[in-house]
């Protein structure tokens, strides 16, 4: 019974493998790519690599997501499932340059 509980606790982690992976890079306080397309109606795993020395906060009200990414480090953010449309996000700590859009279709 106890083992069964442990296995169910692991389920959320095993589910990750099936999610589609997307990668985003922060360099010189800009997102690369600044715009990319994901499938709508399905959850995706977004990996954000911050190549800058300073921390950044991935922030998006449309996506309902916020996450601090330390300098020279990589973070994982799960997004969606989204309805078709355009979803903007910013790097809150450098929001004049760090701007991007996710297009769900």
């Amino acid at each position, binding site marked *: 019974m106890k083992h069964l509980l442990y296995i169910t606790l692991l389920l*959320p*982690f095993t*589910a*990750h493998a099936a*999610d589609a992976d997307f990668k985003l890079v922060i360099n010189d306080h800009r997102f690369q790519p600044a715009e990319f397309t994901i499938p709508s109606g399905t*959850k995706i*795993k977004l*990996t954000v690599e911050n190549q800058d*020395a*300073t*921390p*950044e*906060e991935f922030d998006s*009200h*449309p996506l*309902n*997501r*916020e*996450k*601090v*990414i*330390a*300098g*020279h*480090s*990589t*973070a*994982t*953010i*799960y997004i*969606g*499932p*989204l309805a078709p449309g355009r979803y903007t996000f910013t790097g*809150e*700590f*450098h*929001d*004049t340059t760090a701007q991007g859009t996710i297009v769900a279709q």
Partner: protein
Amino acid sequence: MFGTAIIVFREVLEASIIIGILAAATRSVPNSRRWLFAGLLAGLAGSGLVATFTDVIGSLANGIGQEIFNAIVLGIAVLMLAWHNIWMSSHGAALAKNAKSVGKNITDGTSECSVLLVIVGLAVLREGSETVLFLYGIAASNDGGQSSMLLGGLIGTLLGVAVGYTLYAGLARVPMRWFFTATGILVLLLAAGMASQAAHFLIQADLLPSLASPLWDTSTVLPENGLPGMLLHSLVGYDSRPAGMQIVFYLVALVVIYTGMKLVGRPRQTAMKNHDSK
């Protein structure tokens, strides 16, 4: 400078509102000021620590350490706010009647004060660490204009603190017969909002299903980056595009804490009536 002020304001605002409400709610609890201040200091020290170890925390649990950390911090804060509100509903009336002499007789007054320390500490820790990281980024960059941006940070901090203080001063003017109801409702909504935020982080980490994302969208009517939206977010946990699971957490926290308050508060109300009729 203006952009910096807004970002820092937003971070400071949430902690400031929590402190403002709690400072008012525990006005008549002996020594509460001292504990509140200790919580503030502990939170500031903790902010520095969390900011320093952001990369370590972030890399834990396959890159979702930050979400788990935030959810745990928020979860503890919700429990503490619940405890506070339930405690207040059994002791509030006594405190209002005869603050000083009753205060000494409340045996668990110290535990209420340590709860206060934890809530304030956690609130400052969570919002403070982001501010520290943001300001560190400015200080570390070489594009000049640091002093004007740091000035912006200072302005943002002062404005945030001003909102919390205004809330405190406003609550302090509420007549005694409404006072504990008013602060009780505010703390209740604060706790529910934090429960919703905890769910938000667990969804982001893919540990909880979103149920519906979003359940509704009021971003055009009341955007979260506008001042009213920001204030409502900090006060009652307003979210312009909440996931269904966030609302579940919100309502469960609301109902559970309210029920706890009613269960504990009932004997007190009868005692009060007896007291008044004498």
